[in-house]
């Protein structure tokens, strides 16, 4: 665990984010943790925590946030935004960060297009698994799902 | 020798008029030690000091009748255990401290008639009267013996089962004459009209029946809760030899364990029945 020295002055990262539409309420967050708890991604990926991303923005750790891969995890399911008591719109903030990362050269544009690809394929696999499960009607374990995924390259889209 | 110092101190106090009476220990006709009251300086010779000076002379300071008769300032010779009962009396504002001169004499333990040390002296935890309480200290200072109080005889009675325990005490209650010597010798029993003598309402059966005697001893022990300093006089004077110290020390044990209080140590603190703590034990309450 290392310590982070907080930069003294200069344009605040959080004000930058707050200027974009959807990022207005970021400063209202009082770190209650509801977003992390309602996020399906954080269930799978244990050290991904939307609360920590917001906290880093507020602390102004611009490079660490924009260069991190965390901002790409969000599946924009909007459950956190519905549940947040202070009306912080986390998915919108992720959209803003992705835009800033692109504009300020942290990632290349192909990377953003690729994101759409990944989106499509994962959705497709998810649909297949669900279809298989609904046919069989009895419970399905993680092993079955892994097996389906490994066969998926054989299944035509 | 201690007795010489006592006599000179008594003589000086009487002559310079700072006291009008000295209460001490003397000898009666057949040669037993008896309390003696000296008013004029040359009677000082009557004073004695040996290991038979049982009496707790503090009893006379709380006796209204006695104080009426001798209302001047009084000099009194006390041992360690007597001093504790004086402190209890002071905490209950029964004795006017400036009207008494306390002559504390160190005592190495009293002997009974056939020469072994009294049980109460074995257990005594204060050997010399403390300096800042007494006006005069006679005899060299003996270090205070820190000693855990031994309640083994009490535990032995507690361990009996109910009928035996009842028989053990009823054996004495059948013989108790209700002569009230145990009440009247005790310095802490100074009520103007004792509960036992009250008829309207009549609290306890006045006659010498087993039930009446048992309740008398329960009330007496209850009224000494957190006050009795175990000076042992009540047991000594009882004509039928009832083990009264076993009763008093049972209450002293309960008060020590449950209220963490020892009587006679602090002049300001009265019996723990006038105080409470939020977390007092209530295991016996449903």
């Amino acid at each position, binding site marked *: 665990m290392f310590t982070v020295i907080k930069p003294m002055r200069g344009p605040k990262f959080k004000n930058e984010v707050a200027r974009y539409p959807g990022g207005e309420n970021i400063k209202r967050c009082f770190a209650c943790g509801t977003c992390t708890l309602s996020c399906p991604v954080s269930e799978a990926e244990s050290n991904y925590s939307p609360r920590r991303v917001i906290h880093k923005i507020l602390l102004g750790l611009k490079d660490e946030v924009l260069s991190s891969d965390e901002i790409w995890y969000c599946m924009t399911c909007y459950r956190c935004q519905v549940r947040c*008591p202070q009306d912080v719109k986390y998915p919108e903030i992720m959209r803003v960060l992705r835009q800033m990362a692109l504009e300020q050269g942290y990632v290349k544009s192909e990377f953003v297009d690729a994101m759409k690809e990944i989106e499509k394929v994962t959705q497709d696999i998810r649909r297949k698994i669900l279809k298989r499960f609904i046919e069989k009607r009895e419970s399905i374990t993680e092993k079955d799902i892994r097996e389906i995924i490994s066969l998926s390259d054989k299944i035509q889209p | 020798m201690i007795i010489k110092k006592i006599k000179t101190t008594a003589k000086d106090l009487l002559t310079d008029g700072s006291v009008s009476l000295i209460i001490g220990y003397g000898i009666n006709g057949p040669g037993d030690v008896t309390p003696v009251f000296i008013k004029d300086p040359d009677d000082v010779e009557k004073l004695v000091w040996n290991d038979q000076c049982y009496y707790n002379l503090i009893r006379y300071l709380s006796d209204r009748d006695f104080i009426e008769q001798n209302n001047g300032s009084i000099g009194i010779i006390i041992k360690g255990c007597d001093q504790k009962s004086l402190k209890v009396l002071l905490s209950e*504002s029964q004795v006017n401290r400036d009207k008494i001169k306390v002559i504390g004499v160190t005592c190495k333990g009293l002997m009974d008639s056939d020469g072994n040390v009294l049980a109460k002296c074995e257990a005594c935890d204060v050997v010399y009267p403390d300096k800042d309480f007494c006006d005069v200290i006679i005899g060299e200072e003996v270090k205070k013996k820190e000693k855990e109080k031994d309640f083994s005889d009490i535990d032995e009675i507690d361990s009996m089962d109910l009928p035996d325990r009842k028989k053990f005490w009823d054996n004495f209650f059948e013989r108790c004459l209700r002569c009230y010597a145990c009440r009247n010798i005790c310095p802490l029993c100074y009520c103007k009209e004792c509960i036992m003598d009250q008829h309207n309402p009549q609290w306890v059966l006045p006659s010498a029946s087993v039930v009446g005697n048992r309740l008398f001893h329960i009330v007496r022990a209850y009224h000494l809760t957190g006050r009795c300093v175990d000076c042992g006089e009540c047991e000594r004077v009882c004509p039928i030899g009832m083990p009264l110290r076993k009763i008093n020390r049972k209450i002293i044990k309960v008060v020590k364990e449950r209220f963490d209080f020892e009587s006679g140590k602090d002049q300001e603190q009265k019996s723990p029945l006038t105080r409470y703590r939020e977390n007092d034990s209530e295991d016996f309450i449903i």
Partner: protein
Amino acid sequence: MNKRILVIGGGIGGVQAGLDLAQMGIKVTLVEAKPSIGGRMAQLDKTFPTNDCSTCILSPKLYELASHPNVDIFSYSTLDKVDKKENGFQARIRKKARFVNEEKCTACGLCSEKCPVKIPDLFNKEITTTKCISIPYAQAVPAVYKIDKKHCLYFSKGKCGICQKVCTAGAIDYEQKDTIETIDFDAIIVAAGAEEYTPRIRPEYGFGIYDNVVTSIEYERILSASGPTGGHIIRPSDKTAPGSIAFIQCVGSRDISSGNYAYCSSYCCMQATKDAIITREHDQNACSTIFYIDIRAFGKDFDKFVDRAQSEYNVKYIKSRISEIIEKPKTKNLAIKYITPDGRINTKEFELVVLSVGIRIPDQIKELMTELGVKLSEYGFCPCDAFEPGITNVDGIYVCGTLMGPMDIPETVMSASAAASMAARGLLSPEISSEIIKEKPAEIAIEEKYLKIGVVVCHCGVNIGSVVDVPEVVKFAGSFRNVVFADELIYACSRDSIKYIIDKIKEHDLTRFIMASCSPRTHETLFKSALEEAGLNKYLMQMTNIRDQCSWVHQDNHEEATEKAKDLVCMAVGRSRYLQPLHELDSEVNKACLVIGGGIAGMMSALFIADNGFRAFLVEKDTELGGNLLKINYTLEEKNISWLLGKIRERVQEHPLIDVCLNTEIREIKGYVGNFTTNLTSGKEERNIEHGAVIVATGGREHETESYGYRDESYVVTQREFETMLLNKNPMLKYAHTVAMIQCVDSRESDKNYCSRVCCGEMVKNILQLKNDYPDKDVYVLYRDIRTYGMLEPYYTQARKTGALFFRYDIENKPVIQKEENGEFIITVYDEILRRYIKLRAQLIVLSVGIDPLETNDQLARMLKVPLNEDGFFHEAHVKLRPVDFATAGIFVSGLAHGPKYINESVSQAIAAASRALTIITKDKIRSEAHTAVINEVRCTGCGFCVDVCAYNAIEIDKEKNIAAVNTLMCKGCGSCAATCLSGAVDLSGFTNKQLIQEFQELFL
């Protein structure tokens, strides 16, 4: 002006306001919508932080109000119309039909037993059902049954009518109609209270979907011994005892997105803690977990309560707001995901979940307020400014309780007393005494009369008669010597029975009277007034309970019940032989009040005593009035405190009835309630003043701290110093680009284990002021819990919006400050979200240091013989229901002397103290208890045992004679002294040793 005030709402607020006004001699009409008064407090099982049983401390107040001659209670009634008159109001009150005659109903419960229709039990939050004809709970006041018209078969289908057939008192009356009364009032106090927020708006918590998710008020009913489950904690789904219980905080509070609930409801954290403790007391292996955002234990002894919950009752506190609850279908358990202290996500199954719901103003109360013309805030509450809490925009209408904003019971009681003294202004004057003098025939002296005892045994309809053979008991009663008259009555408490009793007393020239019937707690005053009318001293009556404690509890064994009834009568006869006539003693009251301390609390108390027409002595040891308020420039609501303070000081100094004594010390206070004499010294000259009551408003002081290098660093300041720096734009601010604030400095730790309540509010105020003047400065706040409770929460949100950053630190891991050569500070603190230590750079550090009691408190406490609590603040009589009184009569406390609080709370408490003092000094004479201690001077040895055990300082040892003496005015008649006296010298009149002994001795003769 007919001196009558309308109180809307029968909760604890309305009851307290009504009681205070009645005791000041003003007529009160109390309108309550529900069938019985007591409000939401009657639904609570226990109250924090003392775990008193709620009904135990509430019902005496309800009985006192119901039996007070100045008070008429309109229960089950609504207000049709209220219109403003030139000097008051006129209200049309509709008393809805209960279909039960209030006079006749004896609450025997037979109708409810036989009623075939079950309806949801609103009082128990519909956990169980109750009958169509019912009373909310056993100890309801007024204890009169009510028929629910909608469900009653008689009204819907025209058949049934069983209850009328069964009722022996003939109280059921289907034709009863609503009655309307139009009454004029001088003022109105609205104490309508609030209701719980129903968490349907947050469906993710599964309320109404999963069985085992209940709200906190439902859980109170489950915990309550008189509740549907008889106090056994069972979960709704399968009625088993839950092993693990989760409490979820801030449901419907601090929640902007799900509706207009941005405020914090103030008491839910403590209610959850109390429920968790009581759960553990009921069931040793049930363990509770409380999921919270900030634990808001800001009141007196609250932090100690939370610590005890963790240490003795192993309640776990986890800082994590819950996002959703999922029910496991098979076991009906509830899975909850939460963040553990070290940042991991964890799921745990709980058998029961309690949602700590916030409060909101119900719509019909909003309509009532708009009809009255009172403006409400955006959240539906009725806000008042700091220096006039309770006063609304409409002249003559006052507000108190949760209608003003979320608050706990003590604050409600204080605001209710305050509203009472505000509403009473102009109606009181020293000339008219507020006592109630009933004319009654001269009392016959019975001393030389022969002992003649009369016994009446009551059937109480079938309640006694059906189990106890009453004629047999009457014959038995007649067999006693001295019993010259014995008879039976069907309903002894009915009008004509009372007349019959009065005639019999006169006819047989009785000197003692025994009533064998129901409980003295409810009917003693009724029969005593009968004796008075017959010219017999009312204390010559002895009641014995052969209903609630005999016939009702031995129904299946008639001859044992009869045997017991005979014994009870025998005991009553035994005791009555030794009853003596007793009289309440009256003593003159000096109609003035001493206020100690000239701070804002003292000034407001003095002002409201004087405004009500009574003299006040305001004693202040400094050279000017104002106290701590002189050092405060603005608050969150009031922008210019010094201007407001100046106005109040002016009003105090010019008020003809306030005698301001500056740089004056109190040397000695002697006397007792109604008759205090105080010796004041100012410099050389001395002065004695006479007064009837004392208000302690000596205030508090800022805590001097040594931590974080405050002593020797000029750039480490306290919040108050920072406020003055902001006010006069101190040049030091130029260098402070980043300001770091540290909360709970030296507070909530070993020797100072209490929260000073105001520091979070001050911190937010200073941040807003700083960001307003210097928008580009940074602010970090290092806190343990942000306790901006109630209406302060929106300001906390604003503070975050200005960009201030909040870091939570733990008591074991305090922030560390190092100073660099260039004068800047590096603050190292562990950030639990990042799970890393971070270093913050700041040029100025502001410490929130909290409030300490004055050192002079214990000297004044000893002078007034009133207690201090563990932390050194003055200890009030009862933390919940008597927060302004001391146990010793006639002495009251307000302001910081009672404990840390905000300015508006101090002002509210100060006006409440004035109102409590007025209940005494408005009387010509004070009536003392009749049962007081009596000293037998022959037996008293002056040992002082009785003095130590007297909680009311009513007994003292007279120095010369060394004999105890009782001040009958202060004595409350508890008898502790009589029980402690070793020589039986002290006795309690009315419960003397002889009477108690004779009561059981008669059994064995």
